[in-house]
């Protein structure tokens, strides 16, 4: 939320002055307004129109009480037509210190660039008092921009015949983790409902294949899109938080509970019913307690196959009731479970890393480079197009006792 906006200028005789402000009296005293000001302008003036060396860049400063943050982009235009040969101004935005400042950076930069341009065109700012009828006054502009951005997150304001200010607040998200070819994307929204003809062609092709089962490499293959382009498309979707990345689901996988499993047992946020609605699709709906014990019996040394067998032996045919893939995905998405990945380590290979000498392990072949304990089997499977069993067979070709499998 923008608390206030102002336009400040450096006046050759008077120094830094606030020429316009919105709401009135928020920065400097204005006759007829008896509201407390945000901060003492004189203290901050030095940072609002700083020395030339600091102009023409995005500058922010917090007030001494650490309540407000001023976002500005002081501009210095050098031209002989000005007194002192330069014209300095700043359009500032005042927000709360706690408020997210990121979306406003673009706004501040845009204000600076637009008005710089207009000043160069027709001295819009410096000749303000002799403005023509068909252009808006700066104080009105400030008011409209502030209100529109606060209420609609965007504004589109014609300033004069030639210039329009178009701005929009974009949420800035965290940079998403890189997409790996062995990840499995699953959508968080119905793409078919929001996709239209203007969407990127590659994106459209890729989206058709996001089903929570296919891994990235397979999507690229099936959609007939290059792998790197597929990754970029998915990275985009990930940035806007419209997909999630999971691991490849196989019955040979191991999943283990995290301490968050307690949230499920204590039914935080109605999680149990949510899970039940999602996984009981194979047969009659059972009580939630079964889900609890299903989660609790997963552990770091049990593959899903073994886990299913364990329950079958205890007289509970899980597959008849529960969609196991959905069950596991629910657990992983909610952070109740984590995938225990399989890694391979060759003693010879890691020794060669320490010594810096390259080795050619007998029988290593294509798998040698994966044998440093940093590459999970999923990666090897996807990149080498081998099944788990085939990889294990290949690893047996390594010298005896050289290769270890670590579950992590």
């Amino acid at each position, binding site marked *: 939320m923008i608390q206030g906006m102002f336009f400040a200028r450096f006046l050759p005789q008077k120094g830094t002055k606030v020429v316009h402000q919105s709401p009135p009296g928020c920065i400097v005293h204005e006759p007829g307004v008896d509201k407390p000001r945000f901060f003492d302008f004189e203290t901050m003036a030095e940072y609002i129109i700083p020395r030339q060396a600091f102009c023409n860049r995005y500058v922010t400063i917090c007030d001494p009480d650490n309540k407000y943050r001023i976002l500005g982009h002081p501009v210095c235009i050098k031209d002989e037509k000005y007194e002192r040969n330069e014209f300095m101004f700043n359009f500032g935005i005042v927000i709360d210190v706690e408020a997210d400042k990121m979306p406003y950076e673009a706004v501040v930069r845009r204000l600076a660039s637009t008005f710089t341009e207009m000043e160069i065109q027709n001295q819009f700012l410096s000749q303000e008092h002799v403005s023509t009828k068909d252009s808006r006054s700066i104080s009105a502009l400030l008011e409209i921009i502030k209100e529109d951005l606060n209420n609609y997150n965007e504004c589109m304001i014609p300033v004069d015949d030639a210039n329009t200010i178009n701005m929009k607040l974009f949420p800035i998200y965290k940079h998403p983790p890189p997409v790996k070819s062995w990840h499995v994307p699953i959508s968080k929204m119905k793409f078919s409902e929001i996709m239209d003809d203007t969407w990127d062609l590659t994106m459209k092709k890729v989206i058709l294949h996001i089903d929570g089962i296919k891994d990235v490499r397979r999507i690229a293959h099936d959609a007939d899109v290059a792998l790197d382009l597929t990754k970029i498309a998915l990275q985009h979707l990930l940035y806007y938080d419209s997909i999630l990345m999971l691991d490849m689901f196989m019955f040979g996988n191991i999943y283990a*509970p995290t301490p968050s499993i307690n949230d499920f047992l204590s039914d935080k946020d109605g999680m149990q019913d949510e899970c039940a609605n999602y996984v009981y699709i194979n047969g009659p709906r059972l009580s939630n307690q079964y889900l609890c014990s299903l989660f609790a019996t997963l552990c770091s040394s049990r593959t899903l196959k073994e886990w299913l067998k364990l329950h079958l032996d205890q007289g509970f045919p899980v597959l008849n009731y529960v969609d196991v893939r959905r069950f596991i995905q629910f657990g992983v998405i909610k952070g109740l479970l984590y995938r225990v990945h399989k890694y391979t380590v060759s003693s010879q290979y890691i020794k060669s890393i320490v010594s810096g000498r390259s080795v050619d392990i007998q029988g290593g072949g294509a798998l040698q480079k994966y044998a440093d304990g940093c590459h999970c089997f999923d990666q090897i499977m996807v990149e080498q197009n081998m099944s788990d069993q085939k990889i294990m067979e290949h690893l047996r070709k390594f010298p005896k006792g050289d290769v270890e499998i670590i579950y992590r």
Partner: protein
Amino acid sequence: MANAKDTLNPGLCAIALAIRSRDGPRFVFHYPPHPSTKPTERELRFGTELDTEPAEADDQEQDDYDSDESELEESSYLDMPALGKLDLNEKMQKQQQQLPKQKRHVGTPDGDDHYNDKKGEHVVPWEHLFEFPTADLESILTPSRAFHKKKFELSLDPLHFVAYPMHIREDGLWKKKKTKKSRRATKETDDPEPGPESGEAKSKEKKDQKAGNTSEDGDDSGGMLMFNVAFILNLPKDEEDERILEIYEHVIRKFNKALNHAQASNNYVWRESEVIIAMKEKAREERRPMSWLWTEILLKSTLAGAIRDVFNAISNNKIATLHLATTPPVDLSLQIPVPPYLTSFPRSDDRAMLGLLLTSSNATIDEEGNEDPSYLNRHFALLLLDNEEKIIAEIQADNTELSPPLIECIRLCSPTLSFLQVAQTHNIELSSLLILAQHLVYWRRAVAIRPLHAREMYIVSPNCDSRKLPAANFAWKKAFPLAPSLPSYLAALSAAPRPYKTFSPSKNHRPTYLEMLAWAMRGGWVTQLCTFAWILVWPEILYEVQYQLKAGAIEKAKNKPASGQASTASAESTDESGAEKKPIDPNAPLTTEQAAEQARLERLAKKAAEDAAEFAAEFAKMPVPVATDHPSHNPAPHLKNLSPYIIKDPHKVNHEESLYIAAYGKRFTDPKIRDCWFKFCSKYFNGTEALEMIALQEGMKRKETWSILMHFQEIILVCKHW
């Protein structure tokens, strides 16, 4: 963890000292001499992922796309970074990095030497910091009194200048006059009235002032009005606020306060600043190269040395130990605290903290379940994060009054013994032991863990940093030459969780194996696999309690109607309206109203009796609960519709839940086991307390605990995690 520092880059790129004297602001010193304008490198890993090679490849590809795009862009303003770009933050940083380079006019010296620019002006290499002339920085970095002892946060894209400016007191002194009165008064109140003076303090102060004055040529007019040590940071956009706050709270404020103290007692900052400024002036005239000058300054000025030490330590996320040469000397340690361990599994979009120990056991959770950093669970043990001898040597070198007790604490503690056990066996006070241990934990020398034990299970931590495996394997070989290699040790642990003792080839090997475990735990390679439990109420018990409740209700109803009938028989209604009217005129004939009322009451009574009868009849039809040996397998048809129930928090149970627990309790014939059931129920079967801690906290033998727990096997739901 030694590894944690790699992942938490504080983004510190320089430290600058500026002062304002009566002659105006001066830029005194900055370190490093040529700070890098490169944005801080970010950890590219997320979650627990190890592999980054494809990610780097991605970045390169994306770079290509980006550069295509930026060619199309007309302005140098990044108006809408969210549009059309893939790699926002990274890319923006790259551009920002390029921008200064493009803007930088020819004259800006990057190098070491002086030269004359085109206009023939003397360009001094140290008069620029980043692309800013220090003559401009000195004014912007000496904010007005409004910022005195306040957070000063200025960002000049892409750099952030964060500081805690210190001004001279309004009475023109750096130090409050030491009077008995003012000492008693609160810190904030300024007490100008000189009270009765404590002779010693006063004379000392006078001496200090004299000492200060002599170094200032006895002239006070050039005195300093304020100083400001600004920390210059370059951070990724999405982490700015968090990181700035961290470094401000833990480093910037403390460092400036310490300097203020030194200034107040010894005129330290001003004296040192004068020395540095004089050296700079001289070197300017003599056209000395910057590298020479900086070496000289660092040799001569302890303040410059302190700034260097802070920079070197904090920018590498280490602990800075400072020694300011004042009388008495000021010793100070600064750090941005790092978490000792991760308590939850990192999500896929969290920045990776590889190598950090992953465990849900938090020693700072007090008895009420609240996290309290000043609390340390006495049933935990101390695990040193480095070689014991090395830590002791370091502490000895520090040589503070705390050193001997700390060394004692290190010598006594062992990762296999809880603090309580250590205190008991050595007959020392537990509370002081805990305070010392806490100190070690805070200063990253140790972590508090659940005591290691051969009967417990340990697995490879999902957060271990396998990239370090080659080097760690080497160190492991050195530490345990006869043990299997680290990969095979880890492989064995990870294959199937078993009690740790089964990995040791014989009983004689156990101590060594525990040492190996401590080594692996310290490096974040392994973590303890614990058991957590909840009480599971089977239908049989649910039914039994339900039945009892109904029986109780019928019993009550039976007693009640008896008295109720008696009252209706004598036309004494329990209804208040009836009771009210009766005494007024007991012999008066019934009005129609009264008659209707009585009829209504009769109908109600009849209905109640009918209901009770129906209830009783239904109850009579209900099968009598039979307690079987295995309530989980009771096949009785009347239990089919009931599903088992889990008690969420046995510490705060409702009436029914307490009946369930009691019903289970009744079934244990052995009084000892029954006692344990009630004791363990509320404390341990809540899904957050590990069953492994029972033995320690209750002072029982591990074997005994587990044999008792076996009796509860059927009625608790257990889950294993770390």
